[in-house]
C-alpha cells in the first residue's frame, strides 16, 4: 500500500506547499517544530481541512479538493497515535482497545487482538483504567487501540515526545515491530534524529512547510543541509550484525567486514541492527592513528566535502562499513588536504554508539 499526499495550506505563520509518497513501512516526517509536520498529519486524518490538495491510499481517495471530495475523519480507516495518548478516561483499557473495532468494516483485514495485546505486553492491564497507568503503558495501549481499529494507514504524531528517555527506550521497539509486521503505511512525526535512524524506512525532511529532502534515512540524515534539529542531528546510519560479546563489557559488531566495538548491548549474536554515528563524534586523520584511546578506526576514502555556514564542514568517508560522516572544521579540511578520493581514517569514540541509537533492523532503508 502507498500513501500519496499533496497539500497546500496557509497558516498564520506558515505556508504549506508539498507533496510526497509514503510506501508501506515507516515514513518519518522530520523537521523543527513549526515546520508543518503536525498540520500534515492532521490534514491526512481529516482534523484540519487544507485549502487545496489530495490524499489517497493507493486508489482510495481521502480527499481531493479539485473534486470537492472530503471524507470525514471517521470514514478514513485511520490508526492515529497521539503524542498525549488520548485514551478515554471513563473506559477500561480493554474498552479503549476495542473502541475502533466496532466501526471496522466487516471482513476488513484485522489484527488478531490476542497477538496485539501480547506484542504490546498489556495483557495484565486490560481491566484497569487509564488514570492508573504509567506514561509508557498508556502509550502502549494507545498503539494497540490504533492497531485494532483495522486501519489502512497509521499516523503517529511525536508519540514519544511526552516520555522520558527510559520510557522512550521501552516504546521504540514496539514501533519497530509495527514497521516490520504491519503492512500499512505508517506516517511518523518526530524531531528526534535517533528515532529517525531507528525507525525510518524513508524520511521526508521538512522546512518552512516544504519538502527539503525525501529519501532513505541514511541519505537524508547524512545531508548537513537538512539537519532539522541542528547540525548535531547529522550522522551516518550503518547496518551491522552482532559478532561477539566480550568479557570486558564490550560488544563487537560486524560492519561490512570491519569491526566496531561498543558497550555491551542486550541483542543476540548474529542479530541485525542499525546504529547511528553522529558526525560530531567522528574524528578524521590522514595517517593511521597510533596511541589513541578510541577503539574504532575505519579506513576509507573521502567521498564528498560539504562546507556549511560557519567554520564547520561535513566530510563523508566511504569505508567498508558504509559511509561515515564527520563534522570537522574547514581549517582541518585544508590542513589535511581532504578532497574526494583522498585516503583517510575515521576515528569513532566507542561511547558515541549510544544504546538509544541502536535499533533492531529488518527491512531496507
Amino acid at each position, binding site marked *: 500500500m502507498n500513501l500519496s499526499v499533496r497539500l497546500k495550506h496557509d497558516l498564520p505563520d506558515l505556508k504549506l506547499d508539498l507533496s510526497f509518497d509514503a510506501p508501506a513501512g515507516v515514513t518519518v516526517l522530520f523537521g523543527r517544530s513549526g515546520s508543518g509536520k503536525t498540520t500534515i498529519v492532521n490534514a491526512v486524518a481529516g482534523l484540519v481541512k487544507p485549502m487545496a490538495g489530495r490524499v489517497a491510499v493507493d486508489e482510495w481517495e481521502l480527499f481531493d479538493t479539485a473534486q470537492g471530495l472530503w471524507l470525514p475523519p471517521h470514514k478514513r480507516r485511520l490508526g492515529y497515535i497521539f503524542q498525549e495518548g*488520548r485514551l478515554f478516561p471513563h473506559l477500561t483499557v480493554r474498552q479503549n482497545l476495542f473502541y475502533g473495532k466496532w466501526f471496522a468494516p466487516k471482513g476488513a483485514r484485522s489484527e488478531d487482538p490476542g497477538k496485539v495485546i501480547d506484542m504490546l505486553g498489556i495483557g495484565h492491564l486490560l481491566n484497569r*483504567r487509564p488514570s492508573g497507568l504509567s506514561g509508557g503503558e498508556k502509550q502502549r495501549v494507545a498503539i494497540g*487501540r490504533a492497531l485494532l481499529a483495522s486501519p489502512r494507514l497509521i499516523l503517529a504524531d511525536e508519540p514519544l515526545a511526552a516520555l522520558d528517555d527510559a520510557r522512550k527506550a521501552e516504546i521504540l521497539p514496539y514501533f519497530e515491530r509495527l514497521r516490520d509486521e504491519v503492512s500499512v503505511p505508517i506516517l511518523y512525526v518526530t524531531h528526534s534524529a535517533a528515532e529517525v535512524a531507528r525507525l525510518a524506512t524513508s524520511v521526508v525532511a521538512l522546512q518552512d512547510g516544504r519538502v527539503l529532502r525525501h529519501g532513505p534515512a541514511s541519505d537524508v540524515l547524512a545531508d548537513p543541509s537538512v539537519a532539522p534539529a541542528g547540525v548535531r542531528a547529522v550522522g551516518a546510519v550503518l547496518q551491522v550484525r552482532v559478532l561477539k560479546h566480550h568479557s570486558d563489557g564490550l560488544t563487537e559488531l560486524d560492519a561490512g567486514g570491519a569491526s566496531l566495538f561498543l558497550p555491551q548491548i542486550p541483542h543476540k549474536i548474529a542479530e541485525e541492527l542499525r546504529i547511528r554515528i553522529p558526525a560530531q563524534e567522528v574524528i578524521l586523520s590522514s595517517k593511521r592513528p597510533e596511541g589513541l584511546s578510541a577503539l574504532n578506526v575505519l579506513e576509507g576514502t573521502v567521498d564528498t566535502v560539504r562546507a556549511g555556514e560557519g567554520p564547520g564542514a561535513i566530510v563523508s568517508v566511504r569505508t567498508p562499513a558504509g559511509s561515515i560522516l564527520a563534522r570537522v572544521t574547514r581549517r582541518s579540511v585544508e590542513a589535511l588536504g581532504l578532497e574526494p578520493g583522498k585516503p583517510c581514517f575515521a576515528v569513532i569514540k566507542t561511547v558515541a554508539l549510544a544504546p538509544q541509537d541502536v535499533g533492531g533492523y529488518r527491512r531496507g532503508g
Partner: protein
Amino acid sequence: MEWLGPAELEALKLSLRVSFWATLVTLPLGIFVAYALARWRFPGRQVLNGLVHLPLILPPVVTGYLLLLTFGIQGPLGKLLAEFGIVVAFRWTGAALAAGIMAFPLMVRAIRLSIEAVDPKLEQAGATLGASRLFVFATVTLPMILPGVIAGAILAFAKAMGEFGATITFVSNIPGQTQTLPSAVYAFLQVPGGEAAATRLVVISIVVAMGALLLSEFIGRRVAARVAGT
C-alpha cells in the same frame, strides 16, 4: 401523610408531577443547546445564548404573560397546538411548560460547563477510530458530562418545584389543576386561618429543595469518580 389536608396533598403531588415532566422533557433539548453553545460556532449563537438566559433575567410575571400571549387559547402556538387537541392554557401541562422554561437556563448552564471541561481532543480521537459524531457524543462526551447533566437536571427540578410567578400568570391558580406548591402557599396566605397549612407546605418545600440539592451532590460525586476512572 394524614397531617396534610387534601388540598395540600394535591398541591404537593401536582408540583412533583409538573416538575418531573418539566425536567424530563427539557433535558434532551437542554443537552443539545448546551452542546451547541459549547462546541459549535454558528451565526446567531449569541442570540440563542441570550434567549436561553432570558427567563433568568426577566421578571417571571413577564415570562408568564409572554407564555399566555403565545400559548394561550388565542395565542399563535396555542391555536396550532389546539388543532392537535393539545391545550396547555390553565392546565397542569401549562404549569409544566412554564416551569420547564424557567428552569431551562439553570439546566443549560450546568451542562454547558461540563461539556466545556471535556477535551475536544478526546472527541477527535474517537473520530479517528471510526466513530461518527453522534456515536462519539454517545460514547465519549455524554458519559464524561454525566455528572453535569445530573446536576443540571436536579437543579432544574428544584427550580421547577419553586416556580411561582410565571406559572400563576400563565395558568392561574386552580386547585387540583394548576395549583402547585408555591401557588398553594400563596393561596393559603390569602385566607384567614390558612397560616398553619401554609407553614406545612413551606416545610415541605424546604425539605424537597434540600433533598434535591443533597441528592445532586451525592450522585454527582459518585458519577464523577466513576467517569474519572478512579
